[in-house]
């Protein structure tokens, strides 16, 4: 089990390295360079700026420098906000993005899993049909579209909630729901399907044949097996929560990393783009790692890989 975890960790570091490399290369492939502004700068100025940021050095040297800084926790400089480092900017945005993502995740699980279970247990009932309908509905509508519709309803029409910004409960509830809708729907569907699948298995029949009560059959025999596929999708759902927040933050004007990323792209701030991308890749890798470890806890079959 320990060996398994360590191998995975090593693997993640490797992947992140490749991600950094690819992103770095991509940045240098973008036509137009980082100094494109509406008013073209004088060539001398550009040359000086390049020298200042080390952009005139050969590629591998730049990358080497970058990696070195990375290992020291320095994500480089922002080309736009020249007085602040990328690390600083990202750390500012981190709490907002993390809170948003965290709350959305909780909502998704707290709604998705019980809904899926209820639908599976009361198959073909009203609950089942409604849950299937709603989960399909929310799985289809893009999160940011939902967000905008929510704003339309609660801010513009009902004047109940602010359209954006960051502050308190008021500001977080709509974006969290908009973000959580898709994962909740998906988790509900997977939970339902998985429960139905497990309930059909031979070992459930064996459990009933032993005379165990339905409650025991459900809790002890069904749930753990049913949660395995749910855990599988949790990884990608977490990834979605992380990526989805990019657009949602823009819609709701939340000063998180997502919005920083979008602005970075719009303003050609390479330093920021790189930093944000790496941050996201790292977050996803971490989330997947946690899911993998949990897998080993829940399913004894894979422990001895």
């Amino acid at each position, binding site marked *: 089990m320990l060996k398994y975890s360590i191998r995975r960790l090593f693997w993640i570091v490797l992947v992140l390295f490749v991600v950094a490399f690819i992103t770095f290369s991509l940045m240098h492939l973008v036509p137009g360079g980082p100094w494109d502004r509406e008013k073209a700068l004088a060539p001398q100025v550009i040359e000086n700026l390049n020298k200042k940021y080390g952009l005139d050095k050969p590629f591998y040297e730049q990358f080497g420098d970058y990696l070195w800084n990375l290992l020291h926790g320095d994500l480089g400089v922002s080309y736009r906000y020249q007085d602040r480092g990328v690390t600083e900017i990202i750390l500012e945005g981190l709490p907002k993005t993390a809170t948003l993502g965290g709350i959305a995740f909780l909502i998704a699980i707290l709604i998705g899993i019980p809904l899926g279970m209820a639908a599976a247990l009361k198959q073909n009932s009203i609950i089942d049909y409604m849950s299937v309908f709603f989960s399909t509905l929310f799985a289809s509508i893009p999160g940011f579209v939902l967000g905008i519709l929510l704003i339309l309803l609660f801010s513009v029409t009902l004047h109940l909630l602010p359209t954006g910004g960051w502050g308190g409960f008021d500001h977080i509830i709509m974006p969290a729901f908009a973000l959580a809708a898709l994962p909740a729907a998906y988790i509900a569907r997977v939970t339902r399907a998985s429960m139905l699948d497990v309930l059909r298995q031979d*070992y459930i029949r*064996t459990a009933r044949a*032993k*005379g*165990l*009560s339905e409650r025991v059959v459900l809790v*002890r025999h069904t749930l*753990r097996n049913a949660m*395995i596929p749910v855990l599988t999708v949790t990884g990608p759902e977490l990834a979605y929560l992380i990526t989805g927040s990019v657009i949602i933050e823009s819609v709701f004007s939340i000063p998180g990393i997502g919005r920083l990323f979008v602005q970075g792209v719009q303003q050609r701030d390479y330093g920021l783009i790189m930093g944000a991308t790496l941050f996201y890749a790292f977050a996803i890798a971490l989330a997947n790692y946690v899911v993998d470890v949990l897998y080993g806890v829940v399913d004894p079959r894979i422990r001895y890989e």
Partner: protein
Amino acid sequence: MSTVLQVSDLSTHFHTQDGVVKAVEHVSYEVAKGEVIALVGESGCGKTVSALSIVRLIQEPPGRIVSGQVIFNGTDLLKLSRQAVRKVRGSEIAMIFQEPMTSLNPVLTIRRQMTEALEIHRGMKRQEALDEAIRLLERVGITQAERRIKDYPHNFSGGMRQRVMMAMAISCQPQVIIADEPTTAVDVTIQAQLLEMLHNITKDLDTAVILITHNLGIVARYARRVYVMYAGRIVEHGLAQAVYHDPRHPYTEGLLCSVPRLDEPRCVRLVPIEGQPPDLIAPPLGCQFHPRCSQAQDQCREGTLELVEVAPGHYSSCRMARKE
């Protein structure tokens, strides 16, 4: 010999998109204390469904036990509440299923799966149940039981899993064990071991056994009486000896002829039964077997058939058999 379990006129149907499947129709059989009976027939003939109906493990919907009685120790199991049936399941009537690979819960230890029945049916506490479970595993021939009980099903081979199933089945000292094709999914060499073990254990405990199988060899060796099923009905039954030496139904004859025998010359061709099993949604009128029967007459195509005693203790539903 006193009858311990009696199934009377049991019918179980399944409602599917294509129609109602009459899986079990007016089936009756009984087993006495310590006796071994066999239910034989092809796959899909209703043997398993009838057994599951006894302990009410049929999924309703789409299934439904339509009629009949299952008398166990004086009570009709079909009329009991779900709770009451649960008390009987596993403790008085135990089942051993066919597929060892999928019949055990993969995420629970063997220990957990064995002790749960002991805890609820025999009221044992944790340590007591653990000791008993280890004893049971040893009884079914699993060595190093103390170590292995902590393992998971995937650490065991197919044959060993069946032993575990057997141990689970006898753990509450049931009066009846229903063994549904217990050795079909296992290697031939293991089959023999498992069956011998089952035979010894049930003899010791005086347990009645309903052995469901399509393997006629097993029946001959272990069962006292045999019921032959076809298309959801019993077509012949009697003492195994009698049925084997003097089959009174063309289907039984066909089954026996299609088994290779050691006392016949090797170049004799096996004679299969022509045709396909019938569609249980719209079975043939009259005798279900008549479309495949070489001796079919006009009278076989209509009416309902009853089991008639054609020799002492030997019953058949074939109208032709009565002539003798």
